[in-house]
């Protein structure tokens, strides 16, 4: 298997892996092959979308220490757990730029709006940030949010969440809406289907729906 190498702005060489091609033995073999190329360089291992286990990290560390040609400088990842694991072991670990961009997406001036009423048909509320509704969203009502939407009641109307963003979520205690839009993607639901403790989440371009069994 071939891995990609690239130079970074901190004068280091970065080896890129992700969930699809992460394989300990392959990485070892690849580095052993490229020993001459990597001679004298600072080395960073980038791991995207894959959660590392403690054993994997330890094995990688032992391997890098055994390779005299390069100086291992740490990990780079977009997964929080990896970063926490590395930090607990005292290894440097940076969040990748992708993750930093996502954090920047949530601007500081975004508002969080609270509504303590039931939204009736024809009502429309908007917010540049998150919306929390203490009541129901009836059929025909519309909610538009730049951030997440939380409904502490029945969600039966139309919700458009995460407008212009790549991540967002919608939660409702009870959900029975025909369609919902999250981060520009439309998600239709079965007619007359209802969900309890409903949650829909958009992360890394994937939509994940979680709920308890329907009420009926």
């Amino acid at each position, binding site marked *: 298997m071939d891995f990609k190498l690239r130079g970074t702005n901190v004068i280091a060489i970065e080896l890129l892996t992700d969930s699809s091609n992460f394989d300990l033995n392959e990485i070892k073999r690849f580095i052993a092959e490229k020993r001459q190329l990597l001679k004298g360089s600072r080395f960073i291992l980038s791991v995207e979308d894959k959660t590392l286990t403690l054993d994997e990290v330890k094995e990688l560390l032992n391997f890098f220490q055994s390779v005299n040609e390069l100086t291992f400088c740490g990990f780079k990842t977009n997964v929080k757990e990896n970063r926490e694991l590395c930090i607990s072991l005292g290894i440097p670990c940076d969040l990748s730029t992708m993750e930093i961009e996502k954090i920047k997406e949530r601007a500081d001036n975004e508002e969080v709006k609270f509504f303590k009423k*039931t939204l*009736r*048909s*024809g*009502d429309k509320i908007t917010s540049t940030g998150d919306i929390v509704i203490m009541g*129901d969203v*009836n*059929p*025909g009502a519309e909610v538009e949010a730049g951030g997440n939407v939380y409904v502490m009641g*029945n969600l*039966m109307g139309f919700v458009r969440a995460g407008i212009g963003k790549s991540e967002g979520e919608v939660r409702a205690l009870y959900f029975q809406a025909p369609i919902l839009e999250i981060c520009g993607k439309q998600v239709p639901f079965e007619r007359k289907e209802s969900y309890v403790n409903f949650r829909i989440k958009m992360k890394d371009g994937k939509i994940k729906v979680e709920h308890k069994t329907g009420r009926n």
Partner: protein
Amino acid sequence: MADKVICITSGKGGVGKSTVTANVATALAMKGYKVVAIDADIGLRNLDLVLGLENRIVYDIVHVVEGVVPPEKALVKDKRTKNLYLLPAAQTKDKSAVKPEDLVKIVEELRDKFDFIFIDSPAGIEEGFRTAVTPADTIIVVANPEMASIRDADRVVGLCEAMQKPEPKLVINRLDPKKVARGDMLDVEDVLQVLNLDLLGVVPEDKNMVSYINRGEPAVLFEESIAGRELRNIAERLLGKNVPIPRWTYSESFLDKLKKLFGSE
């Protein structure tokens, strides 16, 4: 009695606003209260038909607004029920002929002379609806147990809220217990789950209703009418009496089962 001006509305057309208005007004008049029903559906007048007064109209609400006659002169007295009066709508004009302030003025003139003033609102949420709702102390929303009607009623409730009116009361009309039992119709709980309003009454489907309307005789006049009985109860509840709302359930009779067995529904 603070709530004497009652507006009956629904958003959607054909759910039974005029029928409920005519029947509840008649039921209250039968109990001895002096009642006037104002038809605010200008251009599509039909409350007079339900009350059977179509051949006695000389002046209408637009004549009153234009100052041709005072409101008392335009009132049509009901032929059967003492104490019941109708202020008919004009059929030749449209909804812009009566402004909210005109109706408020008419209602204020009639307020001292009557115990109850009913306003039959037009369908829709435009000018006509606003005109009808503006003078009201109490609003009754009529809805059928079906999604289109519920959504429109919900919209109307939202508009009433925006107009800073007290929360409307709900009348569910044309509930068919047989269809509910079969799962073909929403039940009372389903309607209340969305609308979340005070329930004033549930009027069951009555196959004789069409003939009562065609004859111009409100159903409350007939003891045998099941819808009429419930409409009389609604009138009682408006008077503040605590009349329990019956649970409309349906259980298949032996005859029904037999019919099903032989496939003749």
